[in-house]
């Protein structure tokens, strides 16, 4: 049975109080959260250890400068717990990373929230988020989508945290700016909350109340997926979409699933020598340089698509404005379906490529 901890403050202030309490009580060694930094209207992820500095924390801020889940994998072993406030998709990324031994769950008290979606980089660059915030929160409280949030967010049906120790009720929470509702799922969360003034009562977190949001998001997702017309034209479609790729591989560097220190497709194995280039040249009459633009995308898809949690960072960073995220998510879902795998659903669920069943795809290869 979950417990709900209600604090009579706005959602954000409530969490900060709670975090402060945990820090002072030495339940945790630090807090990983979004925070304000020196310059006005600038934010980043920070690990805060001094309770006083929590004043800068903005845990619910609708922005994802980097995928927090990816950042959490920086902590291999720590002797003190760290409370991390991250978005549901970041949490799912982290679960996927844990499966690949790129992070340790036991290091953290994982706090997440029903997410109303976040803004793209464009807005943080234009520095106009603050003025949009009031409206944003109104809309989120209503449980609808704010017009300027990322498309990937509008298409995200996983905005309810999975595997969190604590879920903060945000999207669809009408008393957003008067009440802060923290659902304590795990034992460690309940234990840590002991002694915190604020009323705690037993109440199961009710996912069903979000059905309508989920359905809306799904509808939008389908629309978004349909925009990607690659399938109809195959190779040419790929070239149409990825033709402008400049091969900077930023998508893989910000991707929370791409954990490799050096991408295989950047390794010397894939370098061309002039002999190979000559073969290509004489066959085509002309070759694009650097080569293997589309090959890289295919390769990355084959490595991680089934684990894509659709955080949208790849689209955000793409200098050529390629809708990478939509494509990867669309294909990822198709692949994951085969193994009825949902990335970030359950840490026990093994990555499809690491296991097999003897009695599967038995007709394959026998014809």
């Amino acid at each position, binding site marked *: 049975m979950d417990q709900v901890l209600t604090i009579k403050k706005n959602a954000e202030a409530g969490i900060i109080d709670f975090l402060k309490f945990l820090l002072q009580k030495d339940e945790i060694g*630090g807090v990983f959260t979004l925070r304000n930094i020196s310059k006005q209207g600038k934010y*980043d992820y920070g*690990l805060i*250890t001094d309770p006083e500095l929590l004043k800068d924390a903005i845990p619910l801020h609708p922005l994802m400068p980097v995928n927090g889940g990816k950042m959490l994998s920086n902590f291999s072993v720590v002797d003190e717990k760290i409370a991390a406030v991250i978005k549901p998709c970041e949490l799912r990324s982290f679960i996927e990373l844990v499966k690949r031994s790129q992070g340790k769950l036991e290091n953290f008290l994982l706090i997440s929230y029903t997410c109303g979606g976040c803004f793209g980089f464009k807005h943080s660059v234009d520095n106009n988020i603050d003025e949009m915030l009031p409206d944003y929160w109104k809309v989120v409280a209503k449980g609808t989508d704010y017009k300027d949030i990322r498309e990937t967010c509008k298409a995200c049906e996983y905005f309810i945290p999975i595997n969190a120790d604590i879920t903060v009720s945000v999207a669809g929470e009408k008393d957003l700016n008067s009440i802060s509702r923290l659902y304590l799922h795990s034992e460690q969360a309940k234990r840590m909350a002991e002694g915190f003034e604020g009323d705690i009562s037993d109440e199961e977190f009710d996912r069903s109340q979000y059905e309508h949001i989920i359905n809306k998001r799904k509808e939008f997702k389908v629309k978004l997926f349909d925009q990607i017309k690659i399938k109809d034209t195959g190779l040419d479609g790929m070239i149409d979409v990825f033709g402008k790729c400049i091969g900077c591989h930023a998508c893989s*560097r910000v991707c929370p699933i791409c954990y490799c220190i050096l991408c295989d497709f950047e390794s010397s194995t894939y370098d061309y020598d002039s002999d190979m280039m000559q073969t290509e040249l004489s066959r085509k009459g002309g070759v694009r340089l650097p080569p293997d633009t589309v090959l890289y995308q295919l390769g990355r898809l084959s490595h991680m698509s089934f684990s894509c949690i659709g955080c949208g960072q790849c689209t955000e960073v793409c200098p050529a404005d390629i809708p990478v995220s939509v494509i990867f998510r669309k294909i990822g879902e198709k692949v994951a379906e085969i193994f009825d795998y949902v990335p970030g659903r359950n840490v026990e669920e093994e990555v499809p490529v690491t296991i097999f069943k003897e009695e599967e795809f038995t007709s394959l290869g026998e014809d």
Partner: protein
Amino acid sequence: MKKPQNKGVKISLKKGLKESILKTIKDMLHNECFDAVLMPMQVPAKDSYAWVLIKDKKILEEANPIAPVMPVQGAKALSSFSRKGETSLNIAALMKPCEIRAAIELSKLNQINLRNITLISYDCPGALPLSDYTDNPDNSEKKFKTIIDKLNFHDDSVKPVCQMCDEFSLIPDCDLHFGFSHNQENFMLLIPQSKRGEQIIKTMDMKASQDVSEWNKFIQEKRKKRQNKRNERFKKLKNMVEGFDTLMDTFSDCIGCHNCRSACPVCYCRQCYFDSETVIPDSDVLLLKAKKRGGISFPLDRIMFHVGRMSHMSLSCVSCGLCSDACPVSIPVAEIFSYVADNTQKDFEYKSGENKEESVPLMTFRLEEVKGIKKLVENAEG
């Protein structure tokens, strides 16, 4: 340092600038001055450009000698196949001066083998920012056409770093250079800068008989104007980088994607030292670090990365501006690096990509430097 030749070939401009260049290149390919040529070409979706090594003349028709954008640095394209040693084909590359210079730098760093490569440059009005182009290709094409037609070297729609670039014309160590100038409207110049260049002129049986001083004057004016712009811009930049708090402010949006370095032509490393395990601290260290200051920010060591990168490549920086194009959060990386490079290169009396013979003052980096920086950064962040 080699002086520009004082005679060049007179090439008629009746068909227009781009077309005439294309025709000249086509004839050279036809006369087997080289087996293939590297040129920009619009991608099928018509929403950007890519480098294409062209052998087939039909395909050459599609190429655009003076592309409005530079999504990938030409030098990177060259090194993608000539890094493993000299090419069995004779290849020509028609590139912007900054790309030629990058190519020369990379050849010093053994990332390009120039032995069978002919470098052809032209007077560059600059390139449009990549995002502007991808936002609206048609508009950008129009915009850029007027720039070319007017031979406008001071248009403010081109990348900021281009607006203040004073190396936009002939690079002494290229093989051939196309010179444009208003004072000589009906023709352009093809200036041979090397034995190979002269050989090509010979094979084409052209005559380098046209005096270049007129054109030179024209270019010098433009260069002056650009230099002024450069100096005033540098004043501003000074205030953006001096002192670590300023630096941190400037880079406050940085998300640590290191895309600036992966777009950079002279950051040739397969894996950046600042991405390697060596610089990633253990988590207990992290927590201690955080406790010392009350907090630390993620991704880690962003300033260290930028300063570190300067220490590695600023001497070879050619101010092509690709880093700015590649930056997802629009930090003026290119200008900042250009400013720093200007200073470091002055210190060594070195100009990146000017001279094939002189080697890069620092081809290897010393760990002490980086340690030093690390310490500085730590203080700065504390």
